């Protein structure tokens, strides 16, 4: 997969596997064998965190607990519907 230069607004999730505090950089693993150095000056992260990467910068940390909550919420809303 090519994380090419065409994408202005897309952000791709990746996992932080190495941090270099000196120059605000980290290595992310996109999970498909691609690894890339990114800038982490806009976020507070640690190794193992998932981040959204946009134009070479991590723009936000992804929250696994919230992701699960969203899924639970979806299921709950639908089971309410079916119950009606």
């Amino acid at each position: 997969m090519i994380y090419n230069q065409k994408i202005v607004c897309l952000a791709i999730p990746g996992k932080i596997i190495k941090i270099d505090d000196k120059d605000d950089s980290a290595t992310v693993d996109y999970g498909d064998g691609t690894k890339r150095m990114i800038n982490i000056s806009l976020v507070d992260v640690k190794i193992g965190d998932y981040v959204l990467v946009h134009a070479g910068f991590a723009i936000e940390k992804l929250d696994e607990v919230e992701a699960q909550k969203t899924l639970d919420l979806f299921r709950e809303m639908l089971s309410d519907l079916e119950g009606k």
Partner: protein
Amino acid sequence: MFSLNDNKLAHEIVSNIKKKKINLKFMHVCGTHQDTLVKHGLDFFLKDCGIEIGQGPGCPVCVTTPKEIEEMIFLAKNGKIVTTFGDMIRVPGEKKSLQNLKTEGYDIRTVYGIEDAVLIAKSNPDKEIVFMAVGFETTAPTTASAILKNPPENFSILCCHRTIPFALKTIIDMGELKIDGLIEPGHVSTIIGIEPYEFISREYNIPQVIAGFEPIDILMGVWMLIIQIEQNSPFVQNEYSRAVKRDGNIKAQKVMNKVFEVCDVKWRGFPIIPKSGLVLKNDFDQYDSRKKFEDDIIDLQNYKFKEPKGCRCGELLRGLISPRECPLFGVKCFPDNPIGPCMVSIEGSCNIEFKYLKNK
């Protein structure tokens, strides 16, 4: 990490929407939302359920004006190394695109982000490097962060950043189309959070949902809008809570506020939209290409730019037509030979429609 490809759930949502027998028009402002909608055929499914979702001015490359493209062309012709994102160089200016100029031997380079442009400046100390800074709130903090790191003197930016909330207000105020609900862009929202959209629900009684980019995210966003309409309680609901916090990314906002101030700016297809642009603060004049190279681009300031002949990108960006309603779509305008920006950018609705034509 996140599995949101639940087919059964998707079908359940769609069938529940269908039972509602509604007729609503929603707008989103994000190329990635449009891609998900068209790629998975959700636009068709939802139309069948009485819901039309159109893409408004949600493509940074598309809303960049002919004047801004011409500024870059002038700077390239004046010997600068011009850098920007790949899509931008293919957007036709009045006569040529940056891509055409590149084939004529001018130094135009595509970069993945601003840091690559700064590296080019460092390795070419005898040249001036201009980065065309395009993008919404998602991208603006990356520009700001790079500027705060004191890039070399031979580096500057042509700032074309734009911000979403007041563009939404303008499109509603223009009153050209009915908008029953707004799906807000997930990645813009990771930066700005929820509050900047709230005045829209308050003042215009329009429900809003910040949605992620999986098919389920969008279907759920639609569902949430429907419920808000039924309950007549419009507010900004956050479906994409795994990435969007209530206050957004405060660190990124601080970086942006240090570097930029808000300005009024024209968007393609729109008049000047108040408070919808960003300019560098005076402290960073040395990095402002428009100030640094004022003489190179002075002739453009009062020039009246024309849109390409027959091109309906403006109406498309205002949500008035869909790609196939443009007579040029797939007839004279193709991704390989585009006439307007919406066919160039992978976030443009014409490009997306064309890409997935075979699916339909």
